[in-house]
C-alpha cells in the first residue's frame, strides 16, 4: 500500500491513473449497460419499486422519466437525473435533502422520509437509467484503521481542497447568493464520500481523477480525528474563529468586568450616605 502511494508521485503516475480510470469505467460500462436489458428478476423488481416511488415522490419535479423539468414560471423545477448515479440519489435522499420541500437557494438537510430499502430502490432505479457513480462500499469509506500518516495526509488534502468552503474545522461557511457550505463534522462517512463523488449543488465534483479513493478515505480519516479530538483549551465557540472570540471578549469578559465595576461604584455611593 505504501509503495503504491509513493509511486503516485512518479511523472507517469497521472497517466497511469487516467488509463486505469478509463479501463475501470469501460469495464463498468460494459458490465452495467447490457445488464439493464437482461437484469435478474430481483434487480428488476427493485427498479420497478423505485420507479413507483419515484413517480409518487419525485416525478413532479424531475419528470416522469427523470429527465428533468424546466419550467420558469411554475416554480416546479428539477434537473435531469439521467447519469447522476446511485451515489447521488443515496446522498440526496439519505441526508433528507430530497425530496425538496420548497424551492430555495439550496436544498437543506432535513428529516429523512424514505426507509433504507426505499432509498435503495430509488437509487437502483435512477442508476438503471444510465450509469453513474455507484454507492461506495464500506471498504471505500471506512477509515477507522487509518494510520497517523494517513490522517496527516488527509489534513493536507482537506486544507487544499475543502476548507475554503467548509472552514478548517469543518464548521461550514458562506457562499454567494444565500448558498452555504454546511458543517461536515458528524456527517456519516458514507455521505462524505458520496458528497465528494457527486458534488451536490454548489459543491464541485471530486471524481477519482481529482482525488483518488485513497485520498478520499484519508480526508474522512482526518474529519473523524477532528471529531474525536477533545476541545483543547476549552469550549470551541463554534469554530468560527475571531468573530466569536471578539464577541466573547466583549460580552463575557467586558460584561463581567463592567458589572463588577458598577458594583464597586454602587457600594461606594451607599457607604457615603
Amino acid at each position: 500500500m505504501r509503495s503504491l502511494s509513493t509511486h503516485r508521485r512518479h511523472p507517469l503516475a497521472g497517466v497511469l491513473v487516467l488509463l486505469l480510470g478509463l479501463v475501470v469505467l469501460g469495464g463498468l460500462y460494459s458490465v452495467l449497460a447490457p445488464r439493464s436489458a437482461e437484469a435478474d428478476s430481483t434487480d428488476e423488481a427493485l427498479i420497478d419499486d423505485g420507479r413507483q416511488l419515484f413517480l409518487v415522490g419525485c416525478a413532479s419535479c424531475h419528470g416522469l422519466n427523470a429527465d428533468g423539468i424546466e419550467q420558469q414560471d411554475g416554480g416546479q423545477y428539477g434537473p435531469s437525473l439521467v447519469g447522476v448515479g446511485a451515489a447521488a440519489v443515496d446522498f440526496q435522499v439519505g441526508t433528507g435533502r430530497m425530496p425538496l420541500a420548497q424551492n430555495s437557494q439550496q436544498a437543506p438537510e432535513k428529516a429523512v422520509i424514505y426507509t433504507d430499502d426505499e432509498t435503495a430502490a430509488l437509487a437502483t432505479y435512477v442508476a438503471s437509467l444510465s450509469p453513474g457513480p455507484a454507492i461506495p462500499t464500506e471498504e471505500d469509506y471506512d477509515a477507522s484503521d487509518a494510520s497517523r500518516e494517513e490522517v496527516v495526509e488527509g489534513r493536507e488534502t482537506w486544507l487544499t481542497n475543502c476548507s475554503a468552503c467548509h472552514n478548517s474545522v469543518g464548521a461550514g461557511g458562506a457562499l454567494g447568493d444565500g448558498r452555504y457550505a454546511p458543517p461536515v463534522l458528524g456527517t456519516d462517512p458514507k455521505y462524505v464520500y458520496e458528497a465528494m463523488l457527486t458534488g451536490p449543488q454548489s459543491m464541485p465534483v471530486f471524481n477519482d481523477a481529482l482525488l483518488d479513493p485513497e485520498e478520499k478515505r484519508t480526508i474522512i480519516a482526518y474529519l473523524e480525528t477532528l471529531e474525536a479530538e477533545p476541545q483543547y483549551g476549552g469550549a470551541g465557540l463554534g469554530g468560527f474563529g475571531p468573530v466569536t472570540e471578539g464577541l466573547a471578549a466583549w460580552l463575557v469578559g467586558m460584561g463581567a468586568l463592567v458589572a463588577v465595576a458598577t458594583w464597586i461604584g454602587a457600594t461606594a455611593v451607599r457607604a457615603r450616605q
Partner: protein
Amino acid sequence: MSQTEAPARKGGLAAGPLAGPTAWLDDRVGLATIVKKNLRKVFPDHWSFLLGEIALYSFIILLLSGTFLSVWFKPSMAEIIYTGSYDPLYGIEMSEAYASTLDISFDVRGGLLMRQIHHWAAALFLAAMMVHMLRVFFTGAYRKPRELNWLVGLGLLQLGIIEGFAGYSLPDDLLSGTGLRIAEGLMRSIPIVGTYISFFVFGGEFPGNEFIPRLYVAHVLLVPGILLALITLHMVLLVYHKHTQWPGPGRTNNNVVGYPLLPVYAAKAGGFFFVVFGVTALMGALFQINPVWVFGPYNPSQVTAGSQPDFYMGWLDGALRIMPAWEFTILDWTFSMNVFIPGVALMGLLFTILGAYPFVEQWVTGDRRVHHLLQRPRNAPTRTAFGAAGITAYGLLWISGGNDIIATQFQLDFYWITRLLRVLVFVGPVLAFVATRRVCIGLQRKDAEVVVHGFETGIITRSPDGEYSERHLPLSPAEAWTLSAHDRTEPAGLPAASDHNGVAAPHGRVEQVRGRLSRFWVGHDHQKPTADEVREAHEHHADDDELEPAEQQFGGVNELGVPRRH
C-alpha cells in the same frame, strides 16, 4: 547627661523596627513628603472611572503572561519537521515559530492556558481601552486641561492595536499568515511607494525569512516599551491634573471629592486587579481562543472559510469587504483605491478625527476654560450625537467584517448583506446622529422641567371651588444642584462680514464659518432654567399643590399617594 540622651532614645523608639530604611530614604530624597502627599491624593469614584483600570490591569497581565511565552517561543522562520505530540501535524514541514507555538500548546505544562490568557487579555486590553476612551469622550473629560492626556491615550490605543496585530501574526499559522498577506496588500496599496515599503518591511518578497524575527522584536520590546512609557506619562498627567468628577453638591471645579489613595482607593483598586486577573484566567481556562493547531502552518495555497482578524482589526477588514473594486492606472502606477481607502486611509481618518476633536470643539464653541467637572452626555447633545454616529459607523464596518458568518448563521444572502451594508454605512451614522441629538435634547428638556416644577406625583387634588390640580414634589436642593451644575451654552454670534466702510473684516470668512458651526453645535441645546424661573415657579406653586421638598431621590408614590423615599 540624661537630658542629651533622651532625644536620642526617643528617636530610636519612634523609628521602630521598620523605620531604618524608610528614614534612611527620607533623609536622602524626602520620601515622606512625596509619599504623604500622594497617599492622601483623592480619587472620586464612579464605575466608569474603573474602565481605564481594566485596561491597565490587562496590560499587566499581558506583560506577565507574555514573559512566560517568550521563554519557549522561537521567532524563526527556519523550516523544520514537526515531531511534537499533536498527531494530525506529525511530520509536516513548518516554521520554527509555528512549531514552538504548538509545543507551548501541547508540550509545555500550563502553556496552552498561558497562551489563551495572553490572547484573552489582549482582547480585553483593547476592548477596555475603547470603552474607556468612549467614557472620556462622552463625559467631556478630554477638555482643557486634559487634551494632552487624550492624545497620549490615542497613542496608547494605536500602539495597542499594532501590538495586538503583531502578536496575532507571530505564530505563523494559516490565519496569521493570511492576515500578514492582507497587511502586505495594504502596504502595497499606498500609491507609488507601496511596493518599496513592502519590500523594505519584509526584507524582500513576501513572506521571506526575516519578518517573524523583526515582528518579534517589535512585539516584545519596542511596542511594549513605548506603551509602558506612555502609560506612565498617562498616569503622571492624571495625577497632576487630578481626576475629574461628576457634578454634585460640594463638588466644584476647584476641588476633588472622593477617597484618599490609602487605604480605601488602593484597596478597591487592588481588589479590582484580582477581579480582572480572575476573569481573564477563567476565560483562558474555559474558552478556546486562536486554536492554531487546527489552522495548520501558513501555506499560501490554502485558505479557510471564516478567516478573520482579531476584533479590533475587524472593522478594517469589513471596510475592505464592502468596498467596491476601484482601481486606476496613471502612467505606470496602479492606484488600488479599493484597498487603499478602506485599509489605510480609514484608519488614518479615524485617528485624525479623534485627535482633532477636542481642538475643533474648543474652536467652535469658544470654550477655552478649564474643566474638572464632567458633563452628562445629554448636556452636550451634539458631541453625544457625533459619538453615536461614530459608534454606528464603526459597528457597521465591524459587522461587514463578519458578513460570511452572519450569512451562514442567519441564513441570509451574502451578496445582499454586502449591498445593504454599503448603503447603511453612510445612512446609519446620519440617522444615529439625528436620533441621538433629539433624545439628548428631550432629556435636557425633562431635566429642566423637573428642576422648575419638581416631580409629578400623580396625586390629584380638588380644591374647595372644584379646581383640579396635580401636586408636585420639588427637588431637594442637592438634586436641583446636580441637575443644573452644567453651563449654559450659547452659539457664537455671526460677525459682520465687513465693517461700515465695506472693508472686509480680518478673519471674517473664518469667523462666519465658526459662527455657523457653533449654531449647529449648540444652537439646539435646551438650556437649563434660570434662577428666576425656578423661584417664580416655586412661588407659583407654594400655596397648595407643592409637597415638602424631598430630601433624597424621589422614588414614586405608593398606593396611598404618599411619596416614597430611598
